[in-house]
């Protein structure tokens, strides 16, 4: 599982503050989104709410959470875990910033060809 490929997705400034963008490629068939908080922290998640797969990237970012646009579940951006009393978890995806550019970490066998 250590074979992670880092894929460049462009500068942090591409992502609105307290906002998100979806990527053109996915992870095992699932969409990925990158989030940016009010404090300029950034996170990546599979873009599917644990509830009914709502597109989290279309939600509202507050602090380190994202509220799903479909039924208002609140998901932790750092953990992918839904806030109580809801239960569920969205898969987190590794992401890093280098020289102002964001990179997404993909497991080797799943990286897009």
């Amino acid at each position: 599982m250590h074979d992670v490929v880092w894929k460049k997705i462009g500068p942090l400034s591409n992502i609105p503050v307290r906002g998100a963008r979806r990527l053109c490629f996915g992870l095992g068939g699932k969409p990925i989104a990158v989030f940016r908080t009010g404090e300029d922290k950034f996170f990546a998640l599979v873009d599917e709410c644990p509830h009914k797969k709502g597109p989290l990237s279309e939600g509202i970012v507050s602090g380190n959470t994202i509220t799903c646009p479909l039924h208002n579940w609140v998901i932790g951006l750092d953990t992918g875990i839904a806030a109580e009393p809801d239960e569920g978890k969205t898969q987190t995806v590794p992401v890093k910033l280098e020289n102002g550019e964001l990179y997404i970490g993909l497991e080797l066998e799943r990286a897009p060809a």
Partner: protein
Amino acid sequence: MNMISDPREHLVVIGNGMAGMRTVEELLKLPGGKRFRITVFGAEPHVNYNRIMLSSVLAGDKSIDEIVINSREWYAENEINLITGDAVKKIDRETRTVISASGVEVRYDKILIATGSRPLAPPIPGLGLPGTCAFRDIADVDKMLAAAKTHKRAVVIGGGLLGLEAAWGLKQRGMSVALVHLMPTLMERQLDAAAGQLLQRDLDRRGIAFFTDGQTEEITGTDRAEGVQLADGRFIPADLVVLAIGIRPNIDLAKAADLEVNRGIVVTDDMRTSDPDIFSVGECVEHRGAVFGLVAPIWDQAKVCASRLAGDETALFTSRALATSLKITGVDVFSAGALMAEGGDDDEITLRDDNRGLYKKIVVRDGKLVGAVLYGDVADGQWYLGLIRDKTDIREMRDKLVFGRAFAESLPPGKTGPDTASMPDDAQICGCNGVSKGSIVCAIKDKGLVSLSQVRSHTKASASCGQCTNLVEAILADTLGGAVEKKAPSICECTDAGHDAVRQGIVAQSLKTMGAVRAAFGWKKPEGCHKCRPALNYYLICAWPGEYSDDSRSRFINERAHANIQKDGTYSVVPRMWGGVTTPSELHAIAAVAEKFNIPTVKVTGGQRIDLLGVKKEDLPAVWGDLSKAGMVSGHAYAKGLRTVKTCVGSEWCRFGTQDSTGLGIKLEKMCWGSWTPHKVKFAVSGCPRNCAEATIKDLGVVCVEAGYDLLVGGNGGVDVRVTDPLVRVATEEDVLEYTGAFMQLYREEAHYLERTAPWIARVGIAYVKKRLVDDAEGRRSLNARFLYSQKFSQDDPWAARAGGLDAQEFTKLPELADA
């Protein structure tokens, strides 16, 4: 699994339903419960779910996921061996084994039979054809939902609780529904004739057709059900026939194992069958001659049975008086105990108000209450039930009893709530989910809960049918020392401040950013949350037009993307069609866009315009660009703002039209479009009192008359239909426009975010609105002037701007360069 060496006794539970699993839950809570390893057999392929809520699933209020009680993880965590989709076929008491249909054989030390009941299925010819089903489990609901998708006509046989809930659910799913009932009145075992008739009248008004005194002779059809033939010659065509005429305890296994059975599996007060190692609970049992069909007594059985299994030799089950209610939104029915006087000494006292659809009957025997039937207002139901159960001496208040608790106990105003403080901890509050007072109090204290919604989500109390909501609220108030009653509800959990305080603070203290508002009111979370941010953003836009700049990040996706998100993540686009009037060239442009972008659905909306559904997000700017070129602007079908202005053809064409309703509607729409409001706003203008534009259920309606224009406000055609209140009659179109601007501004400045005009006016009163708009001409003019000023900043078409490149990031994916 190394079962042989496990020192624990083996408990085999037959039936993964509500009674069986409730017993297991109770058992796991007890120290003595550790002595068992547990295997559960369930005939259904599912984990255990809340059967009661199948009615809500059918009606579309809940999904299957939402009614699951215990997930597979729960079984795993508690080391319960769950075998689903495999019915037990035999209990062999000689070899002490249980054998399943698929051949699984397990040895037991103790058995719990909780096989529930089966729908009654008399030998009606045609029963069993495709298109016929019962209403008992998920498989039945799946059948009904599938039929509702492809077929139109449903017939439900049986006018009891289940039949009525099935009929209502299918009606909600868009089918036309007829209900056949053998008896002259509905729910005759729970309601007296008077209440049964009121119920029938109300459901009849909601579009269910009743065939009472109807004996089903045959379900006709060759390949699938085609209709229901009644013995008296009546015939009802049907594509779906649901049989809900009753249930019968499921006793086959017990009978074959030579346990004592009668109507049900006979159990003693300790929930043991005639074999002391075999227990039974739920709808399959018979206790002292009684069988069961509601969950409240079953929860009591589960407790007793669990205690016995855990080694407590004292627990005894006793039947208590039961209450019935019906889970149909807006229909309030309650009954408990006797339905009518039985002997010469019994008294019936009734109260009836046909106009308001209220009916109450109580039955008194020997100075005690023995029965209550309520229709229309069931708030006192639990109180009556308590009096019946406790056999309270009611002689002192006998004459007042029927008027309800507040009157009978002469409670001071505002103190009419239920007396939860004196209830014992094990008093059952929520029948649907079996939640006791004690567990609600514990959750409130342990988890620091402060609101009804929190209590609901943590304990499930009042989360199902909602009948016990006032009890749960009262417990919350008792536990928090009355603190919940006094405080105006806060905007959200980030703050204690209410909407009005914040709105006034924004203006009085010149707060012009969200940060400043949050600082001034001591917000607990620095960035707020998804509830307060959209509200504050709106309050600031309204207070500081032209100064405050909108924060798109605090908007719900629809208002940020200027289109409505659909369940599959695509969007819908609704261009404005002023007053519902269009032109051939606009229609050409819409057709061209639909073809060019392969838009799958083009639909005429309920608001007199055209919806393009299924547009890909990345196509939105180009779609809008083409529509803008043809002169069209956003219809704001997504906005908390002005939606549609419906009009009728009016005096231009109609032989009854008194004024130019179409032209006036267009003027109103051109004046008000683009405005942001607390919630959506809809107008309509009808050319005469025939009211073809349905102006009396709009936020603002105009009905034209010979003498001028009647202005009506605060209507709503949505969830809680509300007819408008008349505001004023004016003489000219200019007056209409002035009043409209003033009304919009009053609503914009004073309503709470997400409060439509109907609940807003219900809250402040139409008298107040009249005082501000009709009596105070000066005030009206300045409100209108403020509205027109704010409109200077809001009538830019958001679509044209985005087609021109604004917020391009919103509509594209990363990385923007394909080869990045």
